Structures are given as structure tokens and as C-alpha cells.
């Protein structure tokens, strides 16, 4: 038996065992969903390199780690994690530590916003909240998302009331500690903005240790008619961590989604963002910045589906690669036959600081309609020697000059994070990360 098929049967047994062991008062109503996800998992198995979407991203290392699905009941009190919270005013805070919701660290009392967590919604059989869970993701599009559905235990459930405009961001932060070591956590978030609501959500994954663990995340975002969300995401997991995120976005008429994604942590990370337009007049912007250095793999898969006329999508992703870092970028845009007057633009630029780094970038535009505006562009380049000379001739060391040029390259994406203090913090992180690596890079 191969590693994969062995793993599938092991996972199936473990998952069945896990579900059977769940206390009846904790989301018993979901049990049917869970069992159907197990079946789904058995049908799908784990993705492998024969599938085009996984061709450049091996999961072998991930399976070999043997991460175990288990829950944390740890409840944290005190101030030890406070410095990870967003600076400045917020419209609510949802904190998870090692996958478990932290009531005393969170602030869920925001007028007009229902902030709950999956676990307590299950415990209280809050069907009103729970009924939407899984409607966008289905039982899973690959083995891991099926496992998420089968074994999910916690996550954020946020619902912003119709017409409400939040003028401060919602802070959603997941912190992994050394106790997460060896574990698979399968958080599931559901974000709903009702008609004409406006909000900013900052969603971050941080770690206080260097340990290996696995975040197997599914996040569903539903924007009702005229709603508008700015979604700022930061993946800053431990350097040994595995991170797999599946985002499902659905936009109703005239809704607007603007997402920015920074992937800087983890040994292995993959983010899949699927956007579907449910009605005309909506717009979707996806921005992203990824960094991959020695021993790191980072993968972004975008899948924008124009199934209705008159929607706009724009994707702009940039990557900085050094050491033997590897990145995969796959940007797919489908404009269906009936989706006339669509506008779709995709851009991916990569800065290679080392000859050993590798990028597999693949823009895919499938355009079946004839009255559309579409474009795509991909670049892979190095630091411009003239720019380097210019900075050095003004007294900057070569290392400092390289860092400044890297930050310059990243700035177009970083600006999407809006908040000055968050931008500064992320710029600092980027500098630290590429700091010594850029020195005399070859």
C-alpha cells in the first residue's frame, strides 16, 4: 500500500473514531454532516501530484508528520497574548489559542454584529447561526477540506447586520503555542455581511513557538447585496508549521470584496481562494504577497468564476523568493458564456533573490464570453543592479539597499493593509525575514 492510501484508511478510521467520541451535547445535529464528509473524504482521498492543482505541491511531507486531530480545552486568562492584538480601536476581537476560542481574551459585544464561535454554537444548538456553515464550501473539494468538515470543532462565526458600517476592523487572531506541537487543528470560520453592511476583517495566524503543527482551515465569506468587506489576512505561522487554507467567497448583487493576503510563515503553506459571483454588479479584488526562503514552500491558488454578467475581478500577487524557497502561483479566471461585460485582470510578479529559488506561476484565463475586458501578466525578475548601485552610491550598504528594494517591491501590496501600524509591523517582519538572507545572496 502506498503512503497515501495507507494514510486515507488510517485517517478514515481515526476520523470515525473521533466523531463517535464526540459528546452528544456538542453539535450532535452536525453528525450527519460529519459522516457525509467522511464518505466524501474516502471518495476523494488526499490530493496528489497527478492532479493539476497539486502538481507542484507535494503533501508527502505533511502526511509524514503524522499530525493528530485533537482538541484543546485550554482556556487562557491574563495578558500574555495581548501584544498580538491589533493596535488601535477594533469592532470586536475573536481570539483562538491552539484552535480553541478564548472568551476572556475576546470582545464579542459589538452592537449590530453577532460574534460567536462554532463550539459554543454547537453546544447551545444554535441552529440559526449554524445553518449556514458549509453552504459555500460543501462537504469538501479535496481530502483535507472534507476532513475539516468531518472534525471541525471551533472557529469564528461573524454576522454583520444589514446596513451597518463598522468604522474599525474586527480582529480575528489564531495563536498557536508549543502545546499545538504535533496536532492538526481544523478551524472553520463563517463571515456573513448582510445587505449593505460594510466591515473590515483582519484575520491572522501567529505562533509563539517554532514547533510543527497543522492548521487545516476553511473560511466561508458571504456578502449579501451591496455589502462590502475588506479582508486582510496574515499567515505568520511557526517556521515548522503546515498551513492549508480554503476560502470560499460568494458575492451577491453589487457586493464588493477586497482581500489582501500575506504569507510569510510556515514550512509549507497553501491558500486556495475561490470566488463566485451570484449576481451582477459585484466586484472582487484579491491582492497578495508571499515570501519563501530556505526550505519553505508557499502556494496560492485563485479561482475566480464569472458566472453572471457585469462583474469585475482584479488579482494582483507578488512574491519574494530567496535561498531555495519555492512558490506556486496559480490564478484561474473563468468567464462563462453568459458573463458578458465582465472585467477580469490578473497580475503576478516575482522577485528572485537567489538562483536556487523556484517559482511555478500559471495564469489561466478561460474566456467563453465575447464582450469582456480581460488581461493577465506574469513576471519573474531579479533586483535591478542599477537600482542597487544607485542606493549604494548614496551610502547604503548592499544588504540595506537590497532590503529597501524588496520592501519597495512589496509596498504595493502592503499598502492594502491600510492601517499604518499594521503596515509598519508587517514591513518590519518582512525585513527581519529577508534580512540576513539577502546578504550576498547568489
Amino acid at each position, binding site marked *: 500500500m502506498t503512503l497515501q492510501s495507507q494514510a486515507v484508511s488510517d485517517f478514515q478510521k481515526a476520523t470515525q473514531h473521533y466523531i463517535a467520541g464526540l459528546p452528544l451535547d456538542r453539535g450532535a445535529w452536525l453528525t450527519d454532516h460529519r459522516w457525509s464528509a467522511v464518505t466524501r473524504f474516502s471518495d476523494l482521498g488526499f490530493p496528489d501530484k497527478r492532479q493539476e492543482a497539486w502538481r507542484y505541491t507535494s503533501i508527502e511531507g505533511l502526511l509524514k508528520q503524522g499530525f493528530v486531530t485533537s482538541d484543546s480545552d485550554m482556556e487562557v486568562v491574563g495578558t500574555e497574548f495581548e501584544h498580538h492584538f491589533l493596535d488601535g480601536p477594533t469592532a470586536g476581537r475573536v481570539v483562538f489559542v491552539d484552535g480553541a476560542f478564548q472568551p476572556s481574551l475576546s470582545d464579542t459585544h459589538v452592537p449590530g454584529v453577532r460574534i460567536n464561535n462554532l463550539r459554543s454554537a454547537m453546544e447551545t444548538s444554535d441552529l440559526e447561526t449554524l445553518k449556514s456553515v458549509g453552504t459555500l464550501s460543501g462537504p469538501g473539494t479535496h481530502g483535507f477540506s472534507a476532513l475539516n468538515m468531518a472534525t471541525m470543532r471551533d472557529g469564528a462565526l461573524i454576522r454583520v447586520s444589514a446596513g451597518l458600517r463598522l468604522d474599525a476592523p474586527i480582529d480575528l487572531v489564531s495563536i498557536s503555542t508549543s502545546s499545538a506541537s504535533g496536532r492538526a487543528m481544523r478551524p472553520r470560520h463563517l463571515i456573513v455581511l448582510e445587505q449593505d453592511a460594510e466591515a473590515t476583517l483582519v484575520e491572522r495566524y501567529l505562533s509563539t513557538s517554532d514547533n510543527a503543527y497543522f492548521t487545516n482551515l476553511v473560511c466561508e465569506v458571504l456578502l449579501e447585496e451591496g455589502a462590502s468587506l475588506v479582508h486582510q489576512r496574515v499567515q505568520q505561522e511557526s517556521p515548522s508549521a503546515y498551513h492549508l487554507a480554503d476560502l470560499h467567497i460568494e458575492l451577491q448583487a453589487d457586493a464588493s470584496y477586497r482581500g489582501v493576503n500575506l504569507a510569510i510563515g510556515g514550512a509549507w503553506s497553501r491558500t486556495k481562494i475561490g470566488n463566485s459571483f451570484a449576481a451582477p454588479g459585484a466586484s472582487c479584488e484579491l491582492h497578495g504577497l508571499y515570501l519563501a526562503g530556505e526550505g519553505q514552500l508557499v502556494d496560492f491558488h485563485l479561482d475566480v468564476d464569472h458566472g453572471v454578467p457585469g462583474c469585475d475581478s482584479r488579482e494582483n500577487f507578488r512574491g519574494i523568493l530567496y535561498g531555495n524557497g519555492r512558490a506556486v502561483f496559480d490564478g484561474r479566471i473563468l468567464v462563462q458564456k453568459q458573463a458578458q461585460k465582465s472585467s477580469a485582470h490578473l497580475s503576478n510578479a516575482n522577485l528572485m533573490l537567489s538562483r536556487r529559488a523556484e517559482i511555478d506561476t500559471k495564469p489561466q484565463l478561460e474566456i467563453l464570453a465575447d464582450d469582456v475586458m480581460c488581461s493577465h501578466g506574469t513576471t519573474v525578475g531579479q533586483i535591478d543592479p*542599477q537600482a542597487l548601485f*544607485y542606493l*549604494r*552610491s*548614496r*551610502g547604503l550598504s548592499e544588504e*540595506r539597499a537590497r532590503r529597501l528594494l524588496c520592501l*519597495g517591491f512589496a509596498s504595493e501590496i502592503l499598502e492594502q493593509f491600510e492601517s499604518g501600524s499594521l503596515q509598519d509591523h508587517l514591513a518590519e517582519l518582512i525585513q527581519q525575514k529577508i534580512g540576513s538572507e539577502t546578504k550576498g545572496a547568489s
Partner: protein
Amino acid sequence: MLRIRDLRTSVEGKEILKGIDLEVKAGEVHAVMGPNGSGKSTLAHVLAGRDGYQVTGGDVEFLGQDLLDLEVEERAHKGLFLAMQYPVELPGVNNLTFLRESLNAVRRARGEEEMDAVGFMKLVRRKADEVKLDHKLLKRSVNAGFSGGEKKRNEILQMAMLEPRLAILDETDSGLDIDALRTVADGVNMMRSPERALIVVTHYQRLLEYIEPDHLHVLAGGRIVHSGGKELAFELEERGYGWLLEENAA
């Protein structure tokens, strides 16, 4: 301050500078003129330490040190400044951040304290006014989308901030209209001081109407073929370079 002896330089195996001798003392302004392809820009670049220029002979002494032995940034730390003919655009690199990093790198190298944000802002605003650079451009990316004149003013601003001992202006007049030329020249003239030397590299005599040199050198075929005072500029304007080239060939 600067002594160049028999400097020979090749680019991609082709000899461009074929033995340059030049001495520049503190307080002096030297103009280097010459036809296209004479090696003027090569001389400026090799002094600043740009890659791609092989020094095949001779030596350069700057403030008592072997200049050619220094890294690009070390030359800047010692007080050498090259105002470029084509200032590089740096999208995403904020002009203020760049100026501050640059100033503090030079100050650190000189053993001075770094300048704090308040002091820096005061200084940069004052200097920007002096070179008539719109303050809005300070907040933008370095040179990105700047007009030709704005780029050159930005170069002069950098020079004014770094206060070099020796400034080399490489075709700073190229692509400038008369107003921009005057502003740039005013900025350069403000930098004149008994402790500082300037080398003005130019193709046209026009700039020298505004920046009066003490010495003028004509570079042709990789050699200085003639040196004289500022009156030589007017002679060149009248007669062109031809007579010098013939004289030199004879």
C-alpha cells in the same frame, strides 16, 4: 583632494579611458567636456564605483586614500557623490525614507549621531525649498513618475543633504529646460565652498554659463586633450571640438 594618474578603463574588453590625468583641489570647480563617446560618463562612473568598468591601469587618490579600492558605499561615506545623468526610478521606495537612510548611513560612517525624525524633517524641507522641489515629491516613490527636471532636482537635493566633499555631476543639464537648468545650477552654486570640490561633466557649454568652472578639460578618445580656464568654454562654443581633435591628432 582628488588625484587621477594615468587612469585606464575598459568596458567589455574595449578600452574607453586611455590614460587620464587630473588633479582637483578643495574649493575648485572643474568642468569636463567632450564629444559623445569620449569617455566622460565612464570617468564619472568609474570614480563612483559602478560595476562593469575594469580599471586596467593607473590609480586614483581621494583624500589620501586609494579610491579604487573602496566599495561603492564606502566612497559615499568618504564624501564622494555622483549626481546621475539618468537617476533610477525606485517604485515603492519612499523618497523620505531613502533620504533619511542615506543621510544616516553617511553620518554613521563619519562617526556622527543619526539624525532624529524631527531634525531630519526640518532639514529636508529647508533643502527641498532651496532646490525648489515640490514637497509632495518627498512623499512619493524615489523618482518614480518624476519629470526630467524633478529627477535632477531630486539629485541636487540628495547632494545638498549629504554634503559631500567631492560632487561629480554627470550631464546634469541633459533634458532640462532653461528654468530647470537655472534652478539646478543655483543648487549647485550653493554647494560651492572652500572645503568642497565639484566636477561638472557636460556635453554643452550652456550649463557653464550658470556654473562657472575654475578649470575646463576637454576629453576626447579617452584622453584629456586640452585643459584651460573658463574662457575655453566660449571658444568651444564658437569653434566646436574639431580643432582640438585635429590638434591632438597632429
